[in-house]
């Protein structure tokens, strides 16, 4: 059943992904561009490493509204972390510290969110209910994120179909992690509480590239509003991936869309290989019913170990324990992802749940060349009743942590008999991923008792709608019809000048390509030359387009006119030059030829180009270059006629 073997990333075809039943959906987090945070009046978007104070908190799981505990919550509770928050008073008040109840939701943020919901063709809810979504990892000091679903059931166009937007929520952003070592986790709080929207797509994407393409559509849609934050960390994707027989796994916080293909490829491979591992276990007769594991305290065998991690464990007075996985021989070396093995899955759990964060945190008998003498291995195997078919995993830590670790090793090994455990995972730069936490369920949601439900009126929606940009994919297809250069379409369609472009084309009858180039390419070129193009605002650009439409600036003079504005720092009518009369042109041509004749040329072939350049210095913007060229009968071969 699972006989397909994953190929290297670059060799995988769409058919290969079809074979494994690749399926993926997105949860896109996007910060909104507001001055203040979502539930307090702290400034948003001010990041700093400096802090004035620290506070220490612990998290305990609580019951959901439906009367049950959430699995993730219990897992996080097992980890017993000291959570330290670094406070910078410029960006954090007593609300973020959870010492003041929330203020009413930031209206600007909600307006932006609702607008984006409409762009995604969603149904907007009539009444907003703020929920608390539990996060016991400490990333939010309250232990929960305030979040509310405001839109459901939308869509975006993709290829020849629609990808469904399942839901959109508005929520407060979390802390940024500084470190997580042992039982101590440290967070910065500056990002905490910033307004964010989460957009969830259905899992309609069938290849890694499709996932990235859909992410781009979503990204472009929100960017077209110009009311969202840009820059590193302002948009983060959680990517859900599954394969046939696998489980929906969430890869959290992917910072760049370009990383999505390799990350989803590796996750698909991991799931597929875990399913193959299950098949192998079944072949060996190991199922969840027959699975057997035992653990032993082997500290006494480890009096003077040479292997540095064990040596330091002995010095610290740690317990050293062995876990015998019956019938698992060789399977900890079972490949899961590129350069990752099943042993990584086990080690990850030990790291996260038992807080044994110094790597390596386990060694095992499937890996040759470990630094335990074979005589010790033999003694340990004998003491642990392990035979040749078994794998022995060794783990070390203080009494409590080593106990948790042993438990987690057994739990994770047993899960291999079931397949792919539900988890959230963290992507790495190399495209692989590691365990983050157990996948939380709906049980972690409960209503926020601090804030009342809030009605969203039709009036409010109408006001927001009036200010929304046109859907960027509609602009896209119109630009294609207009024949605008491919490299300009994308940027123009999400540009804040897209409506100016429309006006220029439809009302002032400006040539579409010229208008697109003036609005998109020229500012870029001028920026490259080192100008601050911030001066070129909507008013100035529309003046330029109008002058161009009225023939007051010829096309070849627009760029220099814009440059002149940037040099002066303001718009003035002197960028318009008086048109040259035919007589004046003739006179200039004669003058220029005289200048040309006084230059000694190395290559007579360049005569025409040089003449043209001398002439245009005088005539640019005053007489069309094409007509000047015609008059001097300029062609590539040179000048054939003058006058």
């Amino acid at each position, binding site marked *: 059943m699972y006989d397909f073997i994953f190929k290297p990333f670059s060799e995988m075809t769409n058919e290969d992904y079809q074979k494994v039943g690749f399926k993926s959906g997105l949860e896109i987090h996007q910060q909104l561009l507001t001055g203040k945070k979502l539930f307090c009046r702290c400034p948003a978007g001010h990041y700093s490493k400096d802090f004035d104070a620290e506070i220490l908190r612990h998290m*305990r799981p609580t019951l959901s509204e439906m009367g049950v*505990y959430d699995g993730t919550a219990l897992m996080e509770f097992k980890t017993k972390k000291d959570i330290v928050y670094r406070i910078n008073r410029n960006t954090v008040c007593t609300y973020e510290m959870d*010492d003041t109840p929330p203020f009413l939701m930031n209206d600007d943020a909600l307006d932006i969110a609702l607008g984006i919901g409409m762009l995604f063709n969603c149904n907007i809810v009539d*009444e907003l209910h703020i929920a608390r979504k539990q996060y016991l990892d400490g990333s939010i000091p309250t232990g*929960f994120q305030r979040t509310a679903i405001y839109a459901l059931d939308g869509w975006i166009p993709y290829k020849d179909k629609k990808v469904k937007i399942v839901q959109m929520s508005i929520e407060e952003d979390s802390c940024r992690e500084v470190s997580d070592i042992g039982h101590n986790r440290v967070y910065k709080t500056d990002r905490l509480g910033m307004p964010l929207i989460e957009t969830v797509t259905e899992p309609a994407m069938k290849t890694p590239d499709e996932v990235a393409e859909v992410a781009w559509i979503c990204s472009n849609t929100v960017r077209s509003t110009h009311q969202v934050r840009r820059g590193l960390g302002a948009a983060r994707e959680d990517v859900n991936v599954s394969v046939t027989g696998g489980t929906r796994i969430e890869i959290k916080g992917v910072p760049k869309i370009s990383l999505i293909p390799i990350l989803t490829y590796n996750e698909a491979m991991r799931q597929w290989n875990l399913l193959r591992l299950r098949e192998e276990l079944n072949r060996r007769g190991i199922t969840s019913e027959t699975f057997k594991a035992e653990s032993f305290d082997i500290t006494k065998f480890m009096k003077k170990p040479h292997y540095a991690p064990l040596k330091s464990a002995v010095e610290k007075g740690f317990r050293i324990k062995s876990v015998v996985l019956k019938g698992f021989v060789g399977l900890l070396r079972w490949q899961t992802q590129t350069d990752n093995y099943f042993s990584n899955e086990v080690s990850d759990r030990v790291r996260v749940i038992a807080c044994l964060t110094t790597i390596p945190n386990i060694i095992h008998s499937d890996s040759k060349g470990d630094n335990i003498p074979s005589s010790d291995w033999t003694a340990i195997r004998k003491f642990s009743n392990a035979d040749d078919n078994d794998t022995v995993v060794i783990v070390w830590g203080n009494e409590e942590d080593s106990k948790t670790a042993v438990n987690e090793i057994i739990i994770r090994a047993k899960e291999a008999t079931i397949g792919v455990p539900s988890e959230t995972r963290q992507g790495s730069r190399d495209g692989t991923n590691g365990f983050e936490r157990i996948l939380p369920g709906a049980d972690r949601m409960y209503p926020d*008792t601090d804030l009342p439900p809030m009605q969203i009126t039709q009036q409010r929606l109408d006001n927001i709608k009036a200010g929304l940009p046109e859907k960027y994919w509609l602009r896209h297809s119109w630009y294609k019809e207009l024949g605008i250069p491919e490299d300009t379409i994308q940027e123009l369609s999400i540009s804040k000048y897209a409506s100016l472009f429309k006006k220029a084309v439809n009302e002032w009858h400006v040539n579409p390509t010229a208008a697109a180039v003036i609005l998109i390419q020229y500012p870029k070129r001028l920026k490259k030359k080192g100008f601050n193009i911030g001066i070129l605002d909507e008013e100035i650009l529309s003046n330029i387009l109008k002058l161009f439409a009225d023939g007051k600036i010829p096309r070849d003079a627009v760029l220099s006119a814009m440059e002149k504005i940037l040099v002066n720092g303001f718009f003035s009518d002197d960028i318009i030059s008086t048109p040259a009369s035919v007589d004046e042109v003739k006179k200039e041509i004669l003058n220029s030829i005289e200048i040309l004749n006084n230059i000694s040329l190395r290559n007579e072939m360049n005569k025409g180009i040089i003449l043209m350049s001398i002439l245009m210095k005088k005539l640019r913007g005053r007489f069309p270059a094409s007509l000047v060229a015609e008059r001097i009968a300029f062609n590539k071969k040179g000048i054939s006629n003058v006058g």
Partner: protein
Amino acid sequence: MSDNNDFKGYSGPALEVLKKYNAMIWSDVELITDNGSFQGLILPRSETADDLHIVLKIPVGYNIGIAAGKITDIRINGRKEAHYKIPEKAFPYDYRKPRVKLLGTGGTIASRLDYRTGAVIPAFSPGELYGSVPELADYCNLETEKLYGVFSENMAPENWIGLAEAIGKEIEKGVQGIVIGHGTDTMHHTSAILSFMVQNSPVPIVMVGSQRSSDRPSSDAALNLIHSVKTAAESDIAEIMVCMFGPTSDIYGLLHRGTRVRKMHSSYRSTFRTIGDIPIATVSREKITPLRNDYKKRRHDNNVTINAVFEEKVAIVYYYPNMHPDIIDSLIKNGYKGIIIAGTGLGHVNKPLYPALDRARQAGVAVYMTVQTLWGYVQMYVYETGRVMMDLGVIPAANMLPEVAYVKLGWALGQTNDLEKVKEIMLTPIAGEITEREPSNGYLIYQGGLPEVEEFIKLNRK
């Protein structure tokens, strides 16, 4: 209001729509509306919310509100009722551990959430408490009794009296410590009155509550409960105390003397502060560290004096500039027997009030002066005006906090109408409500922003 539990919390147009389609709460439904359909579970609605929307819990766990007016059809697919239950586990008995009684008055130390009103339902039985805070069993064998289920602001003299009597009974029965769960808003009123009504307790009596309700992962409830139970079980401090967070961080709690403590912030965890003095001790999971040694020590007898009386016709008048004498006059007219003034500075009110104060004296109203600065003593000799007021019968109440003076005056008037006897009771320190000396490290309200304070806060998790 809805007719019955099937449509709990719904009324008006929303109720009509639900009834029309026979969609009761907890029904798993698809709501068909003019703009799309919504799937989920119909939840009960808060009775304070409007009557225009239906609350739906959608499958991902979020709630949303849908306008009833837009609904064109409701398809019912099933039913799923929520059952709230804090996992209940038998509280383990250990003969070596002390017996601690937890008396509940209604606060939210351990609780679950009421989906409908959003209120929290207290978890209270030993089994429920053990289910949510299993650490309690490390310290004691816990017994619980729910005396009242009232919010802190609704605690009244009858509750104080009932609580004092219940404490007396428990001590007679031989418990080794008492914990009282209480809402935080008026915890210091209750701790003060208990300090007078319950005297010479042989065991610790510890009041506790929470600033963040226990339905939140970051709640201070569990740790406060652990600290208070540890104090009741193990400490040698046989006084009425308030046990709440020291810093906002989860590090240690403070044990405040019941007559010197006050809630000083509307929402901070570390809201309770000892005023005019220093706290008795700090308490953590591991240890209790006394900050002073002049407290009453634990004894091994079952003797206690309960004097549970209260005269309700007592008021606090918080003086403000431009106060008119009719405020005092209306109290006299309404038969008040005692007035505590929270005066400005060293204990002052404006001159126009003097005639009214004279009328109060003539009417036999006991009038005592405290300070609204909270910190420091009343000193009515310093200025001429103070002396004039004393001539008008206003008695300085030393460094008693206004709320403490209030409950003490009610308690004194509950015992006698003889104003001389009342004065003797009022001015004789019983439980630290008046101290002879204010320690120089008592008043330390740090001024944030100062470099040395910033330095301190950077180095210490507060």
